[in-house]
């Protein structure tokens, strides 16, 4: 019985299509729920805003991480949500909360970048005397992703750092599923080349 549980699932074209549809439907349903939470939060319901935070904090963090040092991304994530909380009345289409929040995050990162130089310079290569620690490896991988074009970098960080699926990324950021799919696949291809030391 235990062995059965560890077996990879039997994949058929039917079940794949069903799972994909379910994933995308779940992501879409989350967006549909946003409007109710946004309305409640606008009226002052902090718990409703807390639910939006649970739903979107990783997206905001991923978008920030694509632009600012990891040490600053956490604080900026909170600031983005504070700003959203204060300016929620400016949001005209409640169902567009994700795209609106993403734009706040991007603008906030741009302002941050203008005001301060990055504190932690990331290493350009994985090679280091005496071996490479996982920490160094992670920093190098992050640096490599941040050198990719913006669209690829955002989608890859949301996928690889924040653990979001492609449909989730599409639903949260407001991008189409096709765009996210392309961003992930092309971004990953470029990243492989860079990590292997090849030129993209």
């Amino acid at each position, binding site marked *: 019985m235990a062995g059965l549980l560890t077996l*990879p699932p039997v994949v058929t074209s039917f079940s794949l299509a069903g799972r994909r549809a379910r994933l995308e439907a779940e992501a879409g349903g989350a967006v549909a729920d946003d409007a109710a939470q946004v309305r409640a939060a606008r009226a002052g319901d902090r718990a409703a*805003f807390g639910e939006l935070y649970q739903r979107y904090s990783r997206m905001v*963090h991923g978008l920030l991480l694509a632009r600012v040092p990891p040490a600053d991304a956490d604080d900026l994530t909170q600031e983005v*949500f504070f700003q959203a909380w204060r300016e929620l009345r400016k949001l005209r289409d409640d169902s567009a909360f994700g795209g609106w929040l993403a734009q706040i995050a991007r603008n906030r990162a741009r302002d941050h970048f203008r005001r301060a130089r990055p504190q932690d310079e990331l290493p350009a290569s994985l090679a280091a005397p005496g071996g490479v620690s996982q920490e160094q490896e992670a920093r190098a*991988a992050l640096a490599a992703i941040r050198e990719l074009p913006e669209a690829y970098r955002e989608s890859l*960080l949301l996928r*690889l*750092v924040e*653990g979001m699926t492609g449909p989730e990324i599409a639903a949260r950021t407001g991008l189409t599923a096709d765009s996210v799919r392309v961003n992930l696949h092309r971004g990953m291809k470029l990243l492989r080349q860079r990590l292997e030391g090849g030129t993209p």
Partner: protein
Amino acid sequence: MSEEVGRYLWEGWGAPDPEVARLEQLLGRYRYDAPLRPLPARAPSRLPRLVLAFALASATLLACVALLASLRFRWQPGAAWAVEAVSGAPQLDGKLLRESGRLGVGQELVTDADSRARIRVARIGVVEVEPNSRLRLLATTSNHHRIALERGKILARTWAPPFTFAVDTPSAQAYDVGCAYTLEVDEHSNGLLLVTSGWVELEGEEWETMVPQGAAAESRPGVGPGSSYYQDSSPAFQSALREINFGPGSGPAHQAALKTLLQQARKRDLITLLNLMLRLPPEERGQVYDRAAQLSPPPPQVTRDAVVRGEHMALEPWWQSLHLGNVKRWWIYWKDALVL
């Protein structure tokens, strides 16, 4: 990249791509998992602030306007008015006015056939004096300025509260109700008032008539002002009105004039008919009432009986229904102040 590997990247499910899985494991350390910090208090909506700012600005503006207006209307009692010669050689208190001078209380300004003059009425207006005119300054204080026009023609334009500026003529007194008008006194001392803006009240000993913009009224010594009429009414209407206002008040000519006037009357001439209802004898009021009601049915509270009985206030709702404007709202003619 096989389809399976692509699926893992897309859905995070299926056979993992080793490199993707390795990157997930490496980069997972940066994954965000912090709780939301306490939310700040929301600033009050900016709308009330804007409304407050707008209200403050409006109040300040109104206060400034009120201050300017009070300064504009303030005038030292008896202070002379500025006068200038526009053409020819007007005479100020018997002396030749070359360019400019001051017209004091009791002093006279006279123009001959070739001269014109312009008088500043304190700070509230201007009087253009046409040729062959004779006028005198009777009084001037902050709230009352008065001249007497013995003969000739003046063009007056003032902007001030009602009854601040008055012109006495041999047959009536014209009281400014915030307006522009021309007033003429001929060699027989008959008066003619034409109003171009606002209202003027023309008063005699027995009668008074309100003259709105676009209307006129005549006056005769010993009778006072006649009923006002619109300047675009027919000549026959005006001639008949003259007979009714200044004729003997009875007889065939009077009856014919009344018939012509009622026939010629348009809806717009209701101001004349309403005024006449108060001036004519009771036996004729009914005829005028019937024609007026035909042209514009009166409000329900106006009854024929009350009008025939000569009850003054009986006509008030009918006047109001003409929407000729409220004489108390003199300030709406503010454009008259711009050309002063």
